[in-house]
């Protein structure tokens, strides 16, 4: 083993623009002796430090693995351009942060796949580390490369680059994999994969084959061995309250995107917004008890010293004891000079008292997501909030002294018309008017943000195509003109980035050579404007006989097989189709806490699961 640490710290670090990203010795970072550990895991986030360090999943896995004395987990992120150049020029492999160990020397290299725009970066990180990009080319000495996170629910575009994926919650599945590998040392790569594929949630893509018609139309994906399941079930943590959760978060030196403690209230969401992938793949709702959360929060403050805590979930107002929790936590944290923030609050669960508890220390802006301008379109997407909800919530906030408000919308949703866009502007004008009605002078600072709808696998909208580029630009312009309102700032997302996201999100294995070539052409960090170059991606698509735009706009018929059909997220295709049809008719579906809708999730739960929403299901 070459010792890169000293050379890196002495010779390379002083030349870097942001050295604090790479020190690896932040408060609560864990460095273990590699010689004393049986399972050495590198946890990679395919983006820059500031983004990757903001991600909760990574913190959870770091904690769970390092908790075991004989296992170790270290972090690695995509290096900045300056360090990347030095590594390439000096032929130094990409190393972990904590001990500057080359990634190739770990037993397992895990990538979290949070968004499609990070795919090329995964390949760049493999290349920088000298690990063969293609799983088939790796030898017994190379680490097993595993992917997880939301994109693992349709990992087919990455199938050749990963040895296996963990689909679903990894906090029990990953340790199970590690225990298995630990019990059977000295196995060949293939033998290892054969062993671990038995763990629930593990999907080994090389054990499955994609079958296509002669014209390239996707037919199905089938297991190559008779012992393999035809459909891979996702991993599921049945009792979140008992699941391990970190309190000793690593505290970065420099500022990162979300620089704060994160308290995960619950996983899953019962609202059933039809565009939302997270709302499907994290089902069912599993809460942590209030007492558990309070205890975690206290420990976190002591171990990190952070000045802010965020309550995290897909819809925090839906937490069953949100008012008590916010009040108790707000009171306790205020004594320590710690502020509490609630990033995902639904409009209809907004209460003045609660936000007062939340903002005891610092008053930041409030964010609301009506998503669409008309009730008709909100019904189509099943975002069951009304205009009155928004105006009332905003009114309360303005009356309580807030002046900044941020409103999120989506354009290009199925069935959207120009009338829906015009309605966004009308809604925003009413919000501005409410500010004065609440007794304020002047005008509020309102930011309106419009992203482009991207259809995702495992959602009721998985069958629809994205709107064309031309149409995107036209609708953005329409909205931009309509939103020329004093005091209102309009932000819109890059159309091209949304197109690439859509093209990758619903693809199959035909995209493997495209991504390989995009990386060869230098694509990386595509979520960043300064790196993203659509022309290179277009070239990668066309040189592999595909059209980027056609891939994004691709529509499936309900009877078409889908490239992710063999991956069981728990919600049945039948249910998704039913939801899709209701959407097109403008019919809403109630929150499933009001009664089970038979989405299929309950079937995936073990019999001994705690008292969650799904265990009281009455299935049709």
């Amino acid at each position, binding site marked *: 083993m070459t010792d890169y640490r000293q050379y890196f710290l002495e010779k390379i670090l*002083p030349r870097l623009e942001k*050295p604090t990203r790479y020190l690896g*010795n932040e*408060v609560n970072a864990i460095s273990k002796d590699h010689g004393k550990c049986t399972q050495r895991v590198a946890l990679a986030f395919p983006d820059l430090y500031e983004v990757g360090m903001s991600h909760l999943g990574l913190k959870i896995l770091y904690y769970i693995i390092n908790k075991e004395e004989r296992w170790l987990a270290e972090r690695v992120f995509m290096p900045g351009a300056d360090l990347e150049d030095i590594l390439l020029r000096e032929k130094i492999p990409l190393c972990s942060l904590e001990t500057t160990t080359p990634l190739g020397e770990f037993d397992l290299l895990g990538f979290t796949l949070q968004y499609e725009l990070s795919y090329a970066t995964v390949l760049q990180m493999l290349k920088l580390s000298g690990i063969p990009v293609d799983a088939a080319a790796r030898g017994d000495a190379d680490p097993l490369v595993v992917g997880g996170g939301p994109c693992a629910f349709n990992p087919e575009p990455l199938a050749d680059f990963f040895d296996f994926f963990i689909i679903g919650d990894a906090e029990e599945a990953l340790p199970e994999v590690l225990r298995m590998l630990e019990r059977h040392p000295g196995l060949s790569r293939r033998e290892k994969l054969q062993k671990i594929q038995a763990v629930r949630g593990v999907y080994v893509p090389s054990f499955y084959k994609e079958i296509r018609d002669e014209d390239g139309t996707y037919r199905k994906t089938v297991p190559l061995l008779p012992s393999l399941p035809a459909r891979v079930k996702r991993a599921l943590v049945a009792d979140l309250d008992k699941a391990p959760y970190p309190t000793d978060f690593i505290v970065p*030196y*420099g500022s990162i995107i979300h620089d704060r403690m994160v308290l995960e209230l619950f996983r899953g969401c019962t609202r059933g917004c039809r565009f939302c992938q997270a709302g499907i793949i994290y089902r069912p709702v599993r809460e942590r008890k209030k007492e558990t959360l309070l205890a975690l929060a206290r420990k976190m403050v002591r171990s990190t010293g952070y000045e802010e805590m965020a309550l995290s979930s897909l819809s925090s107002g839906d937490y069953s004891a949100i008012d008590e929790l916010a009040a108790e936590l707000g009171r306790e944290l205020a004594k*320590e*000079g710690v502020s509490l923030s609630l990033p995902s609050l639904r409009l209809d669960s907004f209460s003045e008292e609660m936000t007062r508890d939340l903002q005891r220390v610092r008053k930041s802006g409030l964010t609301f997501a009506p998503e669409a301008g008309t009730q008709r379109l909100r019904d189509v997407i099943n975002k069951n909030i009304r205009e009155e909800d928004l105006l009332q919530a905003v009114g309360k906030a303005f009356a309580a002294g807030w002046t900044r408000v941020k409103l999120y919308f989506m354009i290009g949703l199925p069935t959207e018309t120009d009338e829906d866009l015009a309605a966004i502007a009308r809604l925003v004008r009413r919000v501005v008017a409410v500010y004065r009605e609440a007794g304020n002078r002047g005008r509020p600072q309102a930011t309106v943000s419009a992203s482009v709808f991207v259809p995702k696998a495992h959602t009721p909208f998985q069958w629809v195509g994205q709107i064309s580029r031309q149409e995107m630009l036209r609708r953005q312009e329409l909205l931009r003109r309509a939103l020329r309102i004093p005091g209102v700032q309009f932000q819109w997302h890059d159309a091209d980035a949304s197109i690439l996201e859509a093209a990758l999100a619903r693809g199959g294995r035909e995209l493997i050579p495209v991504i390989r070539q995009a990386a060869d052409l230098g694509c990386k960090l595509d979520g960043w404007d300064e790196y993203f170059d659509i022309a290179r991606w277009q070239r990668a698509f066309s040189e592999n006989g595909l059209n980027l735009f056609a891939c994004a706009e691709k529509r499936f018929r309900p009877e078409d097989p889908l490239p992710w059909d063999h991956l069981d997220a728990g919600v049945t295709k039948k249910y998704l189709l039913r939801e899709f049809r209701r959407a097109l008719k403008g019919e809403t579906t109630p929150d499933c806490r009001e009664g089970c809708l038979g989405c299929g999730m309950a079937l995936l739960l073990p019999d001994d699961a705690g008292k969650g929403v799904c265990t009281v299901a009455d299935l049709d």
Partner: protein
Amino acid sequence: MRIWIKFSKDGLLRFLSHLDLLRLWQRALRRAGLPVAYSRGFNPHPRLSFASALPVGIASRAEYADLEFREEISAGDIERLKSALPSGIDIVRWRRVPARAPSLMSLVRACLWTVPLPAGDLNRHLERLQLSDELPVRRKTKKGEKIIDIKPHIYSLEADGKGKRLEMLLACGSEGSAKPVEVLALLPLQWDTAGLLRTEILLAAGDCLQAPMHVLLKEKEVSLNAEEDYYQLRK
């Protein structure tokens, strides 16, 4: 209760910016559970400041924090703070100061720096510097580039007893300053700037300069403690 703390900033932590250091201290104070006083207003912030910003990448044996607490704190509290701080930031000493003493930052007049001496004829260059009437350097400011004469801000430059290091006493603070790298750039030798080290920060005490741990403090008055080391400035 108000205190001044002397600490070192060394090793990898020399790469922390002034803002990074501020955040690190705030969080260490919370981890140690110390009752820091907060400013009033819309966005309360802890009453914590440093004597003088240190350039990123340069180590120091003598940094100073000026801190206010809501309650009395004990030596045991400081021990807890010591263990809450990462290694590289090490508390050397601390003292209680009067609540109404001027801010530490406003009292800073000079800094002592040391850097390893490279081979070459240092004396010849030092002589040239001494004989010149002015030493203009280009300095980037918020408003653009400016030419500044740093001659009056160089108090002394001399090799240490063993001839191994150059010791520099340079003005620092609101009344003008000379930066160590600016001075080294005027001495055309192969300097190893990574070996540059701040060894002391000095406050105005009457006509003299003295370290924060040594000056006498009474109410708002700062005066010389003649029993400890001090520097007399040549007129």
